[in-house]
């Protein structure tokens, strides 16, 4: 066979592979949007579930997810950013920093259901927070730490080394240099990472199973020690646990979750592209 023909066959195969990855994504989105859109209404978004979740809306689940994500990011963002600062600004490459790096990739790889077990053992039982927003948010927070650390590190690395040198040469201390020059420069990248973390936390179900999620709780939480519903868990419940849920409600819930999660991610992606173009140095 001629090399040219071979190349054509090979490239067609590669293109086919790409289609196989891309098309189903589009298909999934189309199915969800087409079937979910009719369910979306102001009432669906703001009403509590009624008639054993067969009617009404998903408002408590939306609020629950909001609180959980908020709690997770409040916990994870400062710790994650400081961890990245430590790795990037305060250590040189040695065994210790390598251990931390290994810990980060392992945190990123631990199955989400294992996070659920851990959150249950540590927060629910050991710290006696009970199944509560606090336990769930902390569990999610630990889970999204790697996302925040990795993207913050990338953002810190993009700040030129010369800025730090200039600042030191002007007699500014290390922490002041980080606070006044490095962090402001890295800020947009850090925010992108935080948004990605939020997107991840918003879509997760397994870590919530034994730490917070309420099967059916048609009211708003009263404190951080209250249980809540969450959109992903709600979707799981109405898809598998309860018979005769109208298709419309299931698709509607799926659509809300997809819009939420993909919207957050799309926002982060666009933000990142814009920032790369705008970067002044």
């Amino acid at each position: 066979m001629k090399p040219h023909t071979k190349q054509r066959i090979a490239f067609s195969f590669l293109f086919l592979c790409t289609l196989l990855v891309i098309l189903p994504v589009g298909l999934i989105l189309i199915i969800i949007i087409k079937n979910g859109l009719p369910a979306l209404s102001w009432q669906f978004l703001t009403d509590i579930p009624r008639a054993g979740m067969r009617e009404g809306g998903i408002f408590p689940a939306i609020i629950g997810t909001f609180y959980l994500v908020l709690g997770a990011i409040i916990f994870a963002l400062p710790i994650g950013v400081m961890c990245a600062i430590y790795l990037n600004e305060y250590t040189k490459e040695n065994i210790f920093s390598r251990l931390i790096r290994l810990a980060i990739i392992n945190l990123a790889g631990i199955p989400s259901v294992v996070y659920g077990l851990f959150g249950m053992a540590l927060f629910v039982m050991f710290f006696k927070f009970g199944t509560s927003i606090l336990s769930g948010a902390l569990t999610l927070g630990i889970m999204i730490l790697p996302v925040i650390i990795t993207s913050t590190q990338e953002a810190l690395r993009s700040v030129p080394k010369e800025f730090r040198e200039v600042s030191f040469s002007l007699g500014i201390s290390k922490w002041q240099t980080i606070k006044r020059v490095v962090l402001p420069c890295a800020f947009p990248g850090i925010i992108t990472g935080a948004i990605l973390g939020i997107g991840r936390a918003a879509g997760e179900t397994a870590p919530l199973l034994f730490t917070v999620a309420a099967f059916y709780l048609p009211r708003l939480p009263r404190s951080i020690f209250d249980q809540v519903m969450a959109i992903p868990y709600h979707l799981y419940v109405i898809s598998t646990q309860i018979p005769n849920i109208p298709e419309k409600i299931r698709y509607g819930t799926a659509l809300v979750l997809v819009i939420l999660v993909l919207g957050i991610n799309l926002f982060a992606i666009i933000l990142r592209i814009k920032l790369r173009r705008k970067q002044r140095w």
Partner: protein
Amino acid sequence: MSKIKEFIIEKIIFLCGIITIVFIILIFLFLLKEGLSLFKSVRIFEFIFGKNWYPISEPPQFGILPLILGSLLVTLGAGIISIPVGIGCAIFIAEVAPRWLKDILKAFIELLAAIPSVVLGFIGMVTLVPFVKNFFGLPTGLTAFTGSIMLAFMAMPTMVSIAEDALYAVPYTYKEAAYALGASRWQTIYRVIIPGAFSGILAAIMLGIGRVVGETMAVMMLTGNSARIPQSFFDPVRTLTATIANEMGEAVVGSQHYFALFSIGIVLFIISFFVNITADIFMHHKK
């Protein structure tokens, strides 16, 4: 004054730096704390190789072999689908696609990675499950095969993005040298670029597979949750992760069943630990 402030802040930063190590150790310790109690009454060998998972029978039996095989089967299926497709897609994005298409495709892959697994599970339930049932004439569409297909989609974004990075990192001079010798683009790709990125591609595969092993929601919704040793791809199976997710709600805290679910957590932790360490070694192999 400002010196003291700086000192305190730097100590806090140091603490945050080591906190990831602390968390990893905490996770492992708490799994051990709860999980090891099981082995006061059940031998490890029986646990891993026992053929029966009857946690609430009298007496209960805690053999996780069917669950391990279930996870293995689903992972194998997802691997067979996702490895060639994912790596092919990575090569296309890294080496064949024009610049503008590359950015769009990468954004798409990122979106795919972001779709919550419970949504993929739901979509699988309403589309794939009835299709598999009717197409193969099975009593149920909830099978290892169904789970494999959906999980392949969860493995692919990880594989594609890491493999694409590895391919992209092959020095440009290699390509130039190959072109200078008169090689076509495809020859350059499979003789120079793929071998050059090989360890990175292996790492991509490992991490993609790691994601499949740890996946919970979609697999629980699609594979039928039958804790018997599967005979074929078209049997319902139950995975390690789905077992925990399914049964923890009903297990009495402090019971053997509860401990057994944590022991499964230990198994999953160890698997993911090895997958990630191996992938990391592959990834830093060339440097």
